């Protein structure tokens, strides 16, 4: 859907975004009025297909009982649990404790949408609401989601949930509401601003590395090239964007 990016323009936007509004105006073409600039901001170029966002989770650093990532996710995305039945709770991110019964080795890890390159949720969606952005982020377009929940059945990671009750305290940047399926968005509203997802930022151990899998110079790509990592249910060949170490 997206054309390859014009590098020079992207560079300019990057700089303008870091600078203050005043700097941004100074750099714009003459003839633009102040008021127009303040209204239109500087449109971003949108998701690029040259990028593939991913995350590497080092479970050896992930402490059992720590849920800093889950808390950060809830705050960022305005998730306040109101349902009585725990099975109906939001599943944007959750902590899982695993134990190998043979040798007693324990693991603790966060599980969420794995942002698959071949996402089964997108395959089964009857309306096109389940979608993958050009930069690999898998989302539900809740404007056209009819709440059928096929995608929840199709997801091998149980990473999607359905909103069962009316909501009122949403974060303005993260609309969510009754009757739609939702899941981890990699904090798309942050990523589009050049920030990393809230969970990765909050992890006290720095166990969650977020970055561009397609950029050979990114920390995540370099570590994947050097160190061993696993895709959960690699047998399904979904080519997940979230990878784990130590499991």
């Amino acid at each position, binding site marked *: *859907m*997206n054309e390859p990016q014009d590098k020079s323009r992207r560079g300019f936007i990057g700089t303008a*975004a*870091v600078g203050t*509004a005043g700097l941004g105006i100074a750099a714009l073409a003459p003839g633009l009025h102040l*008021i127009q600039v303040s*209204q*239109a*901001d*500087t*449109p*971003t*170029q*949108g*998701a690029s297909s040259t990028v593939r966002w991913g995350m590497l989770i080092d479970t050896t650093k992930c402490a059992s009982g720590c849920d800093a990532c889950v808390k*950060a996710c809830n*705050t*960022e995305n305005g998730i306040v649990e109101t349902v009585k039945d725990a099975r109906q709770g939001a599943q944007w991110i959750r902590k899982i404790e695993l134990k190998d019964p043979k040798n007693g080795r324990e693991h603790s890890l966060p599980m969420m949408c794995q942002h698959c390159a071949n996402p089964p949720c997108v395959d089964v969606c009857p309306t096109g609401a389940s*979608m993958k*952005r*050009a*930069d690999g982020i898998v*989302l539900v*377009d*809740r*404007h056209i989601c009819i709440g059928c929940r096929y995608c929840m059945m199709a997801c091998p990671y149980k990473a999607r949930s359905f909103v069962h009750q*009316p*909501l009122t305290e*949403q*974060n*303005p*940047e*993260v*609309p*969510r*509401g*009754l*009757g*739609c399926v939702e899941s981890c968005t990699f904090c*798309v*509203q*942050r990523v*589009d*601003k*050049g*920030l990393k997802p*809230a969970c990765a930022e909050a992890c006290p151990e720095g166990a969650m590395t977020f970055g561009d899998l397609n950029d050979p110079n990114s920390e995540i790509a370099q570590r994947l090239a050097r160190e061993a990592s696993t895709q959960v249910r690699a047998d399904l060949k979904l080519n997940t964007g979230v990878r784990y170490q130590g499991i």
Partner: protein
Amino acid sequence: MALMKQALVGFAAVLLLAPALAVAGAPKPTVKIENPGQCIAPAEEMRRNHMDMLKHQRDRTMRQGIRGEKASLNECISCHASKSSGSVTGKDGFCQECHSYAAVKLDCWDCHQPKAGQKHAGAAGAKP
């Protein structure tokens, strides 16, 4: 005839709880512009086309990740929220007043926060 018309106007005014409607001629919706600034297009164009602008913007942001464009719903809200309630819905709500007059019902507020300026620390960050 004149009586009937008066009765009708009176009825509409009661229905919409908007006394301003009882002025001479056809009843008009109350549209309060409370905040300074300039809309993204002239008022005539906005009245006619805002729904198309929003829909177009919705798809560009949601599906293509393009942000910071003119017809952003959050931007409408930050300019048009009422000073008393901070919202575009409810009594004096900019979007709601006109829509109840026109018998339009939106589902947007099931998900979108109709109150302006509710950004919290985590989501703030630099404006794109």
